[in-house]
């Protein structure tokens, strides 16, 4: 179980002990239930969809902040049904391993699957195991339910032929000269999920997401009803998307960066389309929604700008580092925090599968690169063997000291990127609530050990 957020899981954990039927009974009273699962983007997609539904004044059950196991879900349901006005809808992110059980308990009206990447292999097992778990959940859905699925992920697409399930697909269109992924960059999927023949890609957007077809058995990308294209944007901090549905098209502004966030917005808009929400209304809610804490949201500390982004698997780390490297500031610093507690995944070898070539190429643009956490040295090695010069890498195991080191390395107003694994993300939330936002002398004293 994920540790550290007792307030968001404890009431549910107790309730499940004394009344295991409680979530089902609470769920029965909720008119519309939406479950969101998949490896990356659950939290952000759920937040966007909640924002869309709240526009209509709907009272929602929503498990914020990644409390996505049955205890956290039950807590969110208890809170929502005891509130006035009574809860009308539920938007719940669900851990992949818990998805099947939650599906049969709550009997959702809509189930959304974002993507499958390798993630914490010691917890989830191999990606194909996770796909099988989610398939079992979809098979348990009531007949009238609809699945909203990512057409660009062949592993998600392999869920399509689940018996009798209605699916709404979303996916990307290549836009002009897209920066496509080099063919040799690491990918979790190179073979057809149906027949194991090599998959052929017409376009690869990132990792194994793209336009693919199996020349051997004919398995290919389903044609999406909700199709999204990146539109040019003048801003460094946002995305513009052209969204096309059978009921019309719209330009959508997304106040965050990175293709993975474009997918999150596409997923939320596809779910909104499935719920018959007018596209322009869904689009305006998405435009106004700032990222959740830990999903590349900006904050301030000690007079510096701080951007906190959770990293937990190779693809996510590569996506986040791409955003960091594209920041044109000449004064930026980055803190990579790697821990191996149960919540982080005990195995840290995944960092070797992340594509970090962009960091190597841009290493001169950092004022400081700090590695932190119990396994800071492993992250240091990852950078060293990736080609980052060792005298650019500072090691500071303690998180607060690492933030201090980064802060002292950059001038006031400069950006610092903090990229922690899960356990440190929870610690950061309370640390950042305590530290002064304006310029001040920090509590730190030590300097980093250098290699």
């Amino acid at each position: 179980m994920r540790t550290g957020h007792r307030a968001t899981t404890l009431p549910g954990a107790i309730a499940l002990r004394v009344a295991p039927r409680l979530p089902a009974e609470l769920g029965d009273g909720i008119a519309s239930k939406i479950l969101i699962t998949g490896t990356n983007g659950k939290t952000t997609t759920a937040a966007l969809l909640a924002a869309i539904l709240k526009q209509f004044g709907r009272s929602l059950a929503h498990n914020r902040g990644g409390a996505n196991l049955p205890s956290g879900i039950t807590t969110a349901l208890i809170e929502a049904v005891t509130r006035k006005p009574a809860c009308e809808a539920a938007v719940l992110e669900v851990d992949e391993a818990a998805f099947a059980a939650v599906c049969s308990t709550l009997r959702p009206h809509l189930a959304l699957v974002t993507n499958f990447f390798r993630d914490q292999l010691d917890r989830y097992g191999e990606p194909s195991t996770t796909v099988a778990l989610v398939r079992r959940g979809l098979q348990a859905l009531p007949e009238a339910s609809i699945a909203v699925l990512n057409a660009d992920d062949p592993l998600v697409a392999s869920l399509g032929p689940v018996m009798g399930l209605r699916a709404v697909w979303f996916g990307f269109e290549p836009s002009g000269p897209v920066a496509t992924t080099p063919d040799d960059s690491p990918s979790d999927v190179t073979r057809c999920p149906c027949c194991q023949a090599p998959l052929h890609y017409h376009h690869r957007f990132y990792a194994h997401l793209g336009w693919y077809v199996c020349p051997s058995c004919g398995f290919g990308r389903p044609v999406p009803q909700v199709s999204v294209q990146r539109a040019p944007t003048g801003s460094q901090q946002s995305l513009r998307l052209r969204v096309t549905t059978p009921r019309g098209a719209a330009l959508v502004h997304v106040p965050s960066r990175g293709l993975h966030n474009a997918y999150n917005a596409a997923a939320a808009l596809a779910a909104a389309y499935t719920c018959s929400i007018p596209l322009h209304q869904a689009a305006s809610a998405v435009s106004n929604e700032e990222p959740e804490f830990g999903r590349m949201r900006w904050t301030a500390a000690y007079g510096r700008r701080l951007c906190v982004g959770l990293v937990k698997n190779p693809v996510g780390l590569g996506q986040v580092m791409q955003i960091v490297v594209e920041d044109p500031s000449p004064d930026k610093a980055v803190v990579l925090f790697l821990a191996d507690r149960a919540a982080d995944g005990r195995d840290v070898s995944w960092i070797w599968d992340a594509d970090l070539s962009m960091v190597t190429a841009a290493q001169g643009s950092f004022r400081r690169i700090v590695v932190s956490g119990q396994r800071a040295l492993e992250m240091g090695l990852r950078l060293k063997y990736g080609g980052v010069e060792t005298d650019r890498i500072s090691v500071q195991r303690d998180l607060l000291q690492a933030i201090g080191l980064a802060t002292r390395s950059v001038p006031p107003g400069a950006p610092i990127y903090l990229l922690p694994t899960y356990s440190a993300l929870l610690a950061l939330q309370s640390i950042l609530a305590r530290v002064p936002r304006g310029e001040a002398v920090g509590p730190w004293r030590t300097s980093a050990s250098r290699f």
Partner: protein
Amino acid sequence: MAHEREPLLIAHLYPDLLNTYGDRANVLALVQRAAWRGIPTRTLTATVDDPFPREAEIVCIGGGEDGSQVVVSADLVRHRDTLQELVAEGLPLLAVCGGYQLLGTEYVTGSGRSIRGIGLVEARTVWESRRSVGNVTLCCNALPIGTIVGFENHGGRTYLSPGAQPLGRVLHGKGNNGRDRSEGIIQNHCIGTYLHGLLPKNPQLADWLLLVALRRRDGPQVTLQTLDDRLEWAAHRAAMRA
């Protein structure tokens, strides 16, 4: 030392299939540790249906998902004789996890089905439902290189034939089967092991592989220049405490 002539050829087998557990790290470590000494390398890759890269001077195989392993096992049979011949001639080979299991004589699946391995090493693997997962430290008694650290995550339990030499004795963790405290296997210069994230934080093992390859090619007088490995050893010690 004059290594400038020809790049050292490092073969990475099935990089598209046995790629789930960060074992790319091993190829990266060999390439970089050679490069830092001014020794050029070239990485060759070969996957299903490709010819075997016979000119390879070091071979690396990683671990992958069960489905991928079945595909690789069917293909690897084509290379059995070549591999046996090359390993007998002293080719250094490193196989991790799934790759290690496939080099053995037999793999017994969860349903009791027996899959014949290529028999390159004297090891037999039987699937068990409870996975061995966690950090491992072993004392390498096969080579004079002290401790080896890494992360294991496997369902198979591997048993070595009598007389086969394990890579090391488990100080912390499960290793081959969680029963006899053995981990991995070493046969001539061919190493099988369950440990992921291996060579970067075990620089002595990386250098052993490089040295074997270079001496095989350039003669026994070859030595390796010492590198600044403080970060590597600090990471090694951090993994021992983990």
